[in-house]
């Protein structure tokens, strides 16, 4: 029998895979950033599910951490995206290759 926790974990895994595929396939930096957010939320979902299964508060605490971190990450990420657009007039990740050997 499949209990609730398992279903939620499968959903989380699917979400994570979607986010990963998004990061790998998208060319636009903003979309890659959003895909990363999806992956973060998938991880948060997994924490919440685990926390509810073992009746521990830790899972929810961890989700709060992830939430705060995601907010910070997005704000910095978006600021950098703005800068990239400002300097390179493009958000295509394939064209932003200055840091190669």
């Amino acid at each position, binding site marked *: 029998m499949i209990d609730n926790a398992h279903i939620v974990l499968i959903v989380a895994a699917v979400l994570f895979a979607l986010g*990963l595929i998004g*990061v*790998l*396939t998208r060319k636009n930096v903003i979309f*890659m950033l959003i895909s990363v957010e999806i992956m973060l939320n998938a991880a948060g979902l997994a924490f919440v599910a685990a926390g509810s299964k073992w009746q521990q508060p830790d899972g929810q605490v961890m989700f709060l951490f992830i939430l705060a971190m995601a907010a910070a990450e997005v704000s910095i990420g978006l600021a950098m995206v703005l800068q990239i657009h400002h300097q390179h007039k493009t958000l295509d*990740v*394939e064209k*932003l*290759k*200055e*840091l*190669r*050997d």
Partner: protein
Amino acid sequence: MLIQLLTYIPALPFWGFIVLSLFGRQMSKPVIAWIGAGTVCIAALIVIILGIQFLQTPPADGIYRQVVWTWFHTGNLSVDISLRIDALSLVFIFIITFVGALIHIYSTAFMHHDRDYARFFACMNLFVCSMLLLVMADNLVLLYLGWEGVGLCSFLLIGFWYEVPANGQAANKAFLITRIGDTAMLIGLFLLFKEFGTLYIPDILQQAPQRFAQGDGRITLIALLLLGGAVGKSAQLPLQTWLPDAMAGPSPVSALIHAATMVTAGVYLIARMHVLFQLSPVTMTVVAVIGAVTLFIAGCSALVQTDIKRILAYSTISQIGYMFLALGVGAWSAAIFHFFTHAFFKALLFLAAGVVIEALHHEHNIFMMGGLKKRMPVVFMTFLAGAASLSALPLVTAGFFSKDPILWFAWSAANGNALLWALAIAGAFITAMYSTRLMLVVFWGEAKTPVGAPTARLMIVPLVVLAFFSITAGFIEWPHNLLLLDLFSQHVQKILPATILKQQLPAEWLFQGIAVLITAAGIYSGYVLYYGKPGVRWQQSPGLSAVRNFLFSGWKFDQLYDLLFVKPFVFVTRINKNDVIDRMYNGLARGSVRLNNLLSVSQNGSLRLYIAGVLVGILFIITLQLLL
């Protein structure tokens, strides 16, 4: 207590060195002169006071000893900075400080126009200090410190006028060649420590006869290695080539190197370690032969030199050869006595030569001098005293009293033989001849170079004092058959053993007569050849010219060493220009660069490829986790 003053003897020149090298640039010349010459003069005064006390009331064991502090202590080796005076080192410190002080006084005037006045006196003071440490040390480590200090200072002073590249090369040559001897000596010291477990000189001297039989191989090896050090410092065959080139330094430096310090260090070392040498008859013979051969070949070279200072340089090598000969035949006190008189007349000759060179606008060639007898009477008189002493004019000069016993012992000592005596006598003839040649060419004849400014009084006074001692210093020790006066050897023989004579010898006066005749003959041949004439025409025949060039270049020793050591070395280095071992390291570097090129392809700036790489890595690790 007077013995407390012992420390000040080397400490004063050292203090002068420190002050002059740190603050010399800001000082005025008179201050520098007072510090530079003053420290050595005070040291000389202390030595004289101590010496008088030593001679009047000799200490019970014949030694003044003062431990200043422990230098280092490790395992069972403890090395003290400790000073010691016995009759042997008293002679040396007296000469070093007294003659050194006169040379310093002379230098204050001689170097007056040099812009590196302070550097000069700093080096000179350090030189005197090192030499004092060398002769006052009572352990071999401290002695070696002084030994190397002397080498360093000779390097600094020979290359004093460093703007001329040749002077720098001469300094390098002196340093490197004496280094060869120093290395031998250092190995000898290691072996001594291995055998005895101590480097404290009295212990070694005391234990050596108990531990080793006469002629033991180990003691012979040690003695030969120590002899190597002595040969290097004292410019004896085969390491004598540095000394003639050392003339590149200022004249007072030459005087200091040749008379008071440096070249006599080898004589001191052998005399100090005489027990080891006595245990090894082979080494004693080697010492005597080196001395005899050196005195002869250096004398021959002095005969044809034209540079006044090079003549004196070769004559120093020759006179040190006499000392080695005396040491080798076991005439210990005769060797030290010859050192004692030689210091006076050789310092005198160098300082007087400095005056002459200075007055003739830096003219070194004796055939460009001439006719100085009237124009520089004081220098003439003092130079005459020095040259007479050098050629051992009988009874009136110090050189006679010190050289005569050496000639006698070269035959009559247990270790001596006719061949050594013949070489020594030949050397005496040559010495008299080149001294006469030098005097006649420089002071008689017609003037060829105008005389410059008159000589400063500070330069004349040391000449007069040294001339006085060049004549009178010998009177304290007479040949036994003439007068029973042995003030010198009676003290020195408390430290050094008396000479053992052969049985059934011919009368001593016979040898003295021969020596006197030979000296007179040498002077007469010099007179015949050079008086009123331009000298020997060497160019007359190609054979003579070849002989002259051979002698002039110091028996071609430089060329020989060039052929034997320098050329093969350059050859080998040329073969190995691309160092074999370097190739290994070059290969390593090249491999790393190639690997780097290979891997840097992956850093192509594509963010998505990086993420894919991370993903593959994670999957790989997870797979490993699941499988294992």
